[in-house]
C-alpha cells in the first residue's frame, strides 16, 4: 500500500500552489475536469512517488488535501 492523498476536488480553486511546492512534481491541474466552481482541480499523476511530506497540504490555502502515510 502506498501513501494516500485525498483531494477534495470540489473545494479546489486550481491555484497550483501545491504543484509548485511539491518536491516530486507529481501534482498538476486536471485540464480534463472542471469542478462546480469552474476551476480545473489538482490531481496526482503518480501516487507511487509521493513521500507524504505534506508540503502540498500545508501550502494549500483552501485545505483541500489530506495526506496519509503508509505505516
Amino acid at each position, binding site marked *: 500500500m502506498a501513501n494516500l492523498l485525498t483531494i477534495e476536488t470540489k473545494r479546489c480553486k486550481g491555484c497550483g500552489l501545491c504543484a*509548485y511546492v511539491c518536491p516530486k512534481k507529481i501534482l498538476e491541474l486536471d485540464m480534463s475536469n472542471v469542478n462546480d466552481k469552474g*476551476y480545473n482541480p489538482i490531481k496526482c499523476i503518480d501516487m507511487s512517488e509521493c513521500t*507524504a511530506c505534506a508540503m502540498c497540504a*500545508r501550502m*494549500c*490555502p483552501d485545505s483541500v488535501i489530506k495526506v*496519509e502515510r503508509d505505516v
Partner: protein
Amino acid sequence: MGKVVYEKSKGLTDNPLSYCPGCLHGTIHKLVAESLVELEVLDRAVTVASVGCSVVAYQFFNCDAVQAAHGRAPAVATGIKRVSPDSIVFTYQGDGDLAAIGMAEIVHAAHRGENITVIFVNNGIYGMTGGQMAPTTLITQKTSTSPFGRKEATTGKPLKVSEMIAQIPSAYYIERVSAHTVPHLVKAKKAIKKAFENQIHGKGFSMVEVLSTCSIGWHMTPVESLSHVENSMMPYFPLGVYKDEGEVIS
C-alpha cells in the same frame, strides 16, 4: 489506513473560503486555527475580524467572533478582553485596515499594553476594494490608484509597521514572518503560536506581521506572486523578531 500526516484543522469551519485562488489568507487562517487547536484554547477563542478581504473571517474560524468597524479591531478586542479576561482574543487585520485607517487603534492598543494577539497580514495593497495603493505598497509598484507606480516624492516610502510598533514601550512581542514557502510557514506558525502563548500567560500585546500575496491585485499568477514576496517585499520588509519580552531587538 495510514497515519494522517496532515488534514484540515478543526479550528476551521467547513465553509468554502471566499478568497481568490492562491490567496495566502487561507494558508494564514490555517496557521492561526492550528495554533489555537494545539494550545487547546479554541473553545475560548474570540476572533475580531477586520474590514478587507478577511471581513468574513468569522465564517471560517471555528470559534466566537465579532466583526469590527474598519480599522477598529484592536479597540473591539480591548473591550472583549477586559470584560472577559479568560477569552483568548485575537484580531485578524490586513494592511489597509491596520496600517491605514486603523493606525491610531493599533498604536494605542500597543501603547496600553493590551493583552491581545494581533495577526497583521501585509500584502501591500487594498485587495477587497480593487487593488488600490496602501501605506505598505512598495515604491514603483503599480496599483489602481498608482497606475504609473508608487512615487516616493508624492506618497513617501512604504510604512514599516513592525519596526514602528516595536518602538512602543508597552508592546511585548513583535515579529515579522512570511507565508510564501513551506519553511517560512513553519516559522510563521511558531511565531503565531508564541503570540497566543504570550496572551495565555498574560504577558501583553503581541503582534505577528505576515507577508502575504494578492495575485489578483498584483496582476500575477499565484506562483509568480510568491516570487514577488521573496524578491521584492522581503528586501524592504526584513523578517525577524523586532521585540521580545518587551525588549527591542535591533
